[in-house]
């Protein structure tokens, strides 16, 4: 009986180890994809600046208060893993915006949602963290919206209506980065979980080995 348990536990340990390795490999792939997409996005922006002029793709083009277009929802599953999924808010019509804005304020704290900033297109990477922190406070502070403002606007329009292809490419790279980030975050928590399980299994194994050894001894006596 104990021998069977030991065998099962060894097989389980092997399975967990293989799964852990697979997850690590997947994580590396996704991270490499994320890095290359971010590099691509910044480079496409540099190309857009080449065609449009340096000062037409810069921090001047966006407002200091930005509404997020993408929300990240974190959900804790039964096995302790956390699942991150991104949700893109639909384009709203102008007259709905006023009512919806207030309702977003109301249901916000009750939802298991973490508001994530839409990646602002600026050419100063250090400012990005600062922007995120400062615009965090913006939605709570201003419940009254101007009726002629459309907060659900495509950020591409900040740079003009007739923008070159390269800017659109930059936007699509950054959009993919947002979705990939959520997948990587989920994968990272899954890996931490796997590592924990692996540790547990390895702790249990010597105990099982000892028990089976003593029982074998007793049988042979």
């Amino acid at each position, binding site marked *: 009986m104990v021998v069977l348990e030991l065998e099962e536990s060894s097989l389980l340990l092997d399975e967990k180890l293989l799964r852990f390795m697979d997850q690590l490999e997947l994580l590396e792939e996704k991270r490499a994809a994320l890095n290359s997409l971010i590099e691509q996005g910044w480079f496409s922006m540099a190309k857009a600046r*080449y*065609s449009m002029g340096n000062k037409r793709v*810069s921090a*001047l083009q966006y407002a200091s208060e930005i509404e997020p277009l993408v929300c990240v929802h974190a959900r804790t599953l039964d096995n302790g893993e956390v699942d991150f999924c991104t949700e893109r808010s639909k384009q709203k019509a102008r007259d709905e915006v006023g009512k919806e804005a207030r309702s977003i304020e109301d249901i916000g704290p009750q939802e298991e949602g973490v508001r994530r900033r839409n990646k602002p297109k600026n*050419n100063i990477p250090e400012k990005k963290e600062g922007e995120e922190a400062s615009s965090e406070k913006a939605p709570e502070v201003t419940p009254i919206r101007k009726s002629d403002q459309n907060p659900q606007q495509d950020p591409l329009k900040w740079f003009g*209506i007739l923008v*070159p*292809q390269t800017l659109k490419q930059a936007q699509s790279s950054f959009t993919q980065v947002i979705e990939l980030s959520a997948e990587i975050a989920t994968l990272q928590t899954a890996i931490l979980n796997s590592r924990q399980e692996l540790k547990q299994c390895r702790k249990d194994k010597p105990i099982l080995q000892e028990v089976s050894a003593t029982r074998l001894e007793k049988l042979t006596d």
Partner: protein
Amino acid sequence: MAELSFNKDHGYLEGLVRGMKAGILTDTDYHNLAQCDTLDDMKLHLQSTDYGKMLSSSEEDLTVSLVDSKLRENLVTEFSCLRSNALPPLSTFLDYITYSYMIDNVVMLITGALKQRDVAEVLPRCHPLGAFDQMAAVGIARTPTELYSAILVDTPLAPFFQEAVSDTNLDEMEAEILRSKLFKAYLESFHSFCKSLGGATRDTMCPVLEFEADRRAFIITVNSFGTDLSGADRSALYPSCGKLYPEGLQLLARAEDHEQVKAVADCYPGYKIIFDDPEPESGCKTLEDRFFEQEVKLNTLAFLQQFHFGVFYSYIKLKEQESRNIVWIAECVTQRQKSKIHNYIPIFK
């Protein structure tokens, strides 16, 4: 007979501009810049060119944006030197060159106001060549009509508002339409001014301005796919002083995708090569890159003739391309994308 009397009024300035043209970066300079690993290395290499100590004198952190601003400052200094010594009609010609920057500044101020940006923040980013007295007030206007009647009526841009006045509120779309309409009126006015000057000025400037008009028509069409700008709206934005007028423009207004635009370009030998499929080795050049290349070719031709104003316009445009090249190399260096660093356009081979 222009050759006999040109030097009396404009000889000094033509000499000056040809001297400045000799300082345009060569292939060797670009090769050295492309070898750099940091912006500091680039600063060092630029010191041995006509730019001299341009970057060393500033205490701010060396960023690509700073390099761009300094290059622009340098060009403005050279232009101001030319403009302050110019007599009519060269002074009018040089003023015409500044109007395109004024139009860009007006639109930048309007979009800055739409984003609730402080005027004090936006003003320093405006192009100095396009400065005018009433700039600070531009952000207050809510419609193009208000913009014209209250603010721009006393500026040189007033004559270009003929077709641009409207009572729709200024939002991103209206600002873009305003930019294109003002530019169309400006280009057509500049073209007829050059034509009236006649002689070598007309022979060098008119092809350049016609190319500019056609380029705008193509770029507006291609960039409008997937946006709210319809074909009918676009056709009001196409300048009519180019080779495409009138049949090409009508076809472009009806084009719905890139293939149809290419079909229009195929009817004109000069534009067919721009839209042709690239060879695999040339890398992924964008449409804008190809137009810039063609622009450089046309502008270098201006220096083959003497006693005309085209050299002044061409010099400004070639210096702008040089700035774009240097900034491109700087971006590749800072982003470590050395493989694409040779996408700049060399000017005088």
